[in-house]
C-alpha cells in the first residue's frame, strides 16, 4: 500500500471546495445552535434552497451570476422566515422537528416528477457555472498544482469562508451578539431587560441560513450539477458532526471540524481500500468500506456528545446546554 499517496490525498481534502462548503454550513449551524441555542436540523434544506435558487435562476432566466447569488440569498431568508414564524416561540425540540421536516419537504418537491421541467426531478439541473467561470481572474496555468478553474473554485469558496468567519467574529463580539448569547443562557432574563427575543432569534436563523445558502452554491458550482440526492438528512447530520468536532460556540471550530471530518473520511477510505486490495482484509468489499466510514461518523457523533460536548477547541463554559 502506498501510504504516501493515501496521506497526501487525505491532506488534499483540507482545501477542496466541498470542505469549504461544509465549513461554511457548519459555521451557520454555530450561529444557530452554538450562539443562539436554536436546534436547526434542516441546514441541508438551506443548502438546497441556495443551490437550487442559484441554478434555477441561471438556467431558466439566463440570469448573470450575481443575480443568481442574490436570488439564493433571498430564497434562504424567505425559507428562514417560513421556518421561524411557527416555531421560534416554541420549545427547542419543536424547531428540530420542523426544520428537519421542512428540509425534507424541499427535497421531495425538487425530486417530484411533476416539476421535471423546473427542477429536473431526481436527475437535477446541470450547466449553470458558465457565467461564474467568466469571472475567473486567473489566466490559464498551474496554481499550487491546480488548474486555473480548480484554483478559482477554491479561491471563491475559502474566500467566502474567511469573510464569513471575520464577519461572524465581529458580530458575536458586538452588542447584538452578546444579546444572542444572553438568549442562549437565559431567555427569560433577556426578555425581562426589554429585548425582543423573538426578533433576535429570527435574525440569527436568517444569518445562519444565508451562510447555508452560500455553502450550497460553493458545494454545487464545481460539480456544475445540483441533485436532490445530495441534500438528504444525512448531510445535516454530517454538518452537525463537523460542528461538534470543532466546538459549537467558536468561529474557527466548525471550519477545523469540517477539515478534520473530510481528512479522516478520506484517510479511512484510503486505508481500508489499501487493506482490501492488499488482501489483509477479506471480509469487506470496497463499497462496504465506504459505508463503514459512515458507521464511524455515527459512533463519533455519539462519543463526542457524551464525552467531549465542547468539541476539540470549545470552552465547556460556553455550551448551549447546561
Amino acid at each position, binding site marked *: 500500500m502506498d501510504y504516501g499517496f493515501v496521506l497526501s490525498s487525505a491532506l488534499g481534502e483540507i482545501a477542496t471546495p466541498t470542505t469549504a462548503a461544509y465549513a461554511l454550513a457548519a459555521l451557520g449551524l454555530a450561529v444557530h445552535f452554538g450562539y443562539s441555542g436554536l436546534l436547526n436540523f434542516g441546514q441541508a434544506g438551506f443548502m438546497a434552497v441556495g443551490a437550487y435558487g442559484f441554478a434555477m435562476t441561471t438556467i431558466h432566466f439566463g440570469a448573470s451570476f450575481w443575480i443568481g447569488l442574490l436570488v439564493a440569498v433571498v430564497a434562504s431568508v424567505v425559507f428562514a422566515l417560513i421556518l421561524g414564524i411557527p416555531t421560534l416561540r416554541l*420549545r427547542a425540540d419543536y424547531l428540530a*422537528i420542523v426544520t428537519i421536516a421542512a428540509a425534507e419537504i424541499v427535497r421531495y418537491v425538487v425530486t417530484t416528477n411533476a416539476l421535471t421541467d423546473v427542477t429536473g426531478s431526481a436527475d437535477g439541473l446541470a450547466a449553470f457555472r458558465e457565467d461564474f467561470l467568466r469571472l475567473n481572474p486567473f489566466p490559464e496555468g498551474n496554481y499550487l498544482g491546480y488548474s486555473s478553474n480548480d484554483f478559482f473554485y477554491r479561491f471563491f469558496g475559502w474566500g467566502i469562508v474567511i469573510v464569513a468567519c471575520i464577519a461572524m467574529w465581529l458580530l458575536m463580539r458586538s452588542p447584538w451578539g452578546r444579546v444572542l448569547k444572553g438568549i442562549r443562557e437565559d431567555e427569560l432574563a433577556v426578555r425581562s431587560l426589554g429585548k425582543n427575543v423573538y426578533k433576535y432569534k429570527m435574525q440569527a436563523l436568517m444569518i445562519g441560513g444565508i451562510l447555508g445558502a452560500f455553502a450550497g452554491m460553493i458545494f454545487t458550482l464545481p460539480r456544475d450539477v445540483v441533485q436532490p440526492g445530495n441534500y438528504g438528512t444525512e448531510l445535516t447530520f454530517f454538518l452537525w458532526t463537523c460542528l461538534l468536532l470543532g466546538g459549537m460556540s467558536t468561529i474557527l471550530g466548525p471550519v477545523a471540524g469540517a477539515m478534520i471530518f473530510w481528512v479522516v473520511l478520506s484517510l479511512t477510505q484510503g486505508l481500508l481500500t489499501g487493506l482490501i486490495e492488499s488482501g489483509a482484509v477479506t471480509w469487506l468489499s470496497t463499497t462496504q468500506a465506504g*459505508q463503514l466510514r459512515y458507521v464511524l461518523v*455515527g459512533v463519533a457523533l455519539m462519543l463526542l456528545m457524551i464525552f467531549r460536548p465542547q468539541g476539540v477547541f470549545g470552552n465547556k463554559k460556553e455550551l448551549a446546554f447546561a
Partner: protein
Amino acid sequence: MKSTALAAHPPRTPRMLVAAGALLGAILAVLLALAPAAVATTTPSPSPSPSPTQFQNTITGFLRNEGQPLSGVEIKVSGEGFEGTATSTQNGSWSIGVPTQGTYTLELDESTLPQGIKLAEGQENPRTVTFTGTSNVSSIFTFGRGIQIVQADFGQQLLNRLVAGLSFGLLLALAAVGLSLIFGTTGLTNFGHGEMVTLGAVAVFSLSAAGLPFWLAILLALAGSAAYGYIQDAGLWKPLRRRGTGLVPMMIVSIGLALAVRYVILLFFGGSTQQLPYAQSPDIQLGPISISPNNLWSLLISAIVIGAIGFVLLKTRLGKATRAVADNPALAAASGIDVDGVIRLVWVTGGLLAGLGGILWAYYRPGVNFEMGQQILLMMFAGVTLGGLGTIFGALVGSVIVGVFVELTTVFGLTADLKYVGALVIMIVVLLFRPQGILGRRERVG
C-alpha cells in the same frame, strides 16, 4: 447481572464507553449472524442467455403493476448486431448485458404478461433506447388495467383510499406509540426510532431468507426488536440519564445512533429493496371496497394491538404507573413507583411495537429497504406532533389522521411522489395555530 452493570454510583467514563461499545457490538453480532442468509438471497438471479455479467453495458428496468412486481415477463432486445431476451425476476427487475453502447430495440412480449394486465395506454412497444455515455440505461414500462381504471368512479376511489389510509395510519400509530411514550417518560426526542422500525422488517426478511418458517421469523424478529429496545436503554440511555446528560445532547446522541445503525444495516443488507414472503397478493373485494389482503391484515393487527395497549394503559396498575411517570417523574418516584423500571418497560414495548410497525410498513410500501425507517420517522413525528407531543392517545389520533391524509391527497390530484409532503405541511400548519396538538395541554409547549 443487571445490578453490576447499572450500579447506583454514577458510572465513570470507561464504563460508558464499554456500554456504548457493547450496544453496537450486539447490533453488529445480530446482523453478522443474519448476513450470510441475506447475501445468499440478494444476489440477483441471472437472466437467461446471455448472462448480464458477460458484458459491461446493461439495459435494466422494473416491471410493476400498482406496486406489485411482475415476474416471468420476457423482453426481447435487438440492435448493434446483438439479440437477446431478458426475463423479469421475482421482484420484477430485469437486466440484460449488451456488447456495445449503442441503440437497441426493446420489445415486451405481451403474451407473457399475467392475465388481466396490459401495458398502459401510450406506452411505446417496441421502443428504442440509446446509451448516453453511461454503462447502464434503464427503461420503464408502465401498466394499467386500461379502461377499467378510467371508469373507476371518484366515490369508489375515495372509499378505497380511505381504508388504505386507515391501515397506514394505524400501523403508523403502532410505531409511534413507543416514540411518544419515550418522549413522555424521559423527555427524549428519539431520532433513532426509525431504525427500530427498519430492524423489525430487516430481521423478518433475513430470518425467512435463512429458511425459517414465516411465523417463527416474525416471532424472532419481534423478540429481537424488544431486545434492541432493552439493550439500548440498559447500555446507553439509562447511564446517560444517571449522568444527568441534558435532553438536547441526548437527542444528538440518538442521531448518532441512528446514523451508525442505519449504515450498519446498509453494510450487511445492501442498498436494494427486497420483498417479504407473501408480499404479492391481488386485491380482494370486500363489499364496496377493494383492498389487498395484506392491508386488511395490517389493519386488523394494528387495531387489535392498539386496543390492547389502550386497555393496559387505562385499566391496569402498570398502565397507571406509566401514565404517572409520563405526567411527572419526580412525583411518581416519590409515590413509590419504580421510575427506571417503567422507563425500561417503555423502551422494550416501544422497540417491540416499532418492530411490528416495521413489518407491517414493509408490506404496505411494499419492500424492505435500509432507509425505510428514516422515511417513516418524519411521518411518526408528524403524527405525534399533530396529536400532542408526549400524550399517548394523541399519538394514536395524530397518526391515523396523518395516514388517512397522506392517502387521500392522492385522490385529490396530488402526485404520488409528493404524498408525504402533505403530512409534513399540515404538521407545520398545526404548530402555527395549535402548537400543543390536538390532545396536548398548553403547559407542555412553553
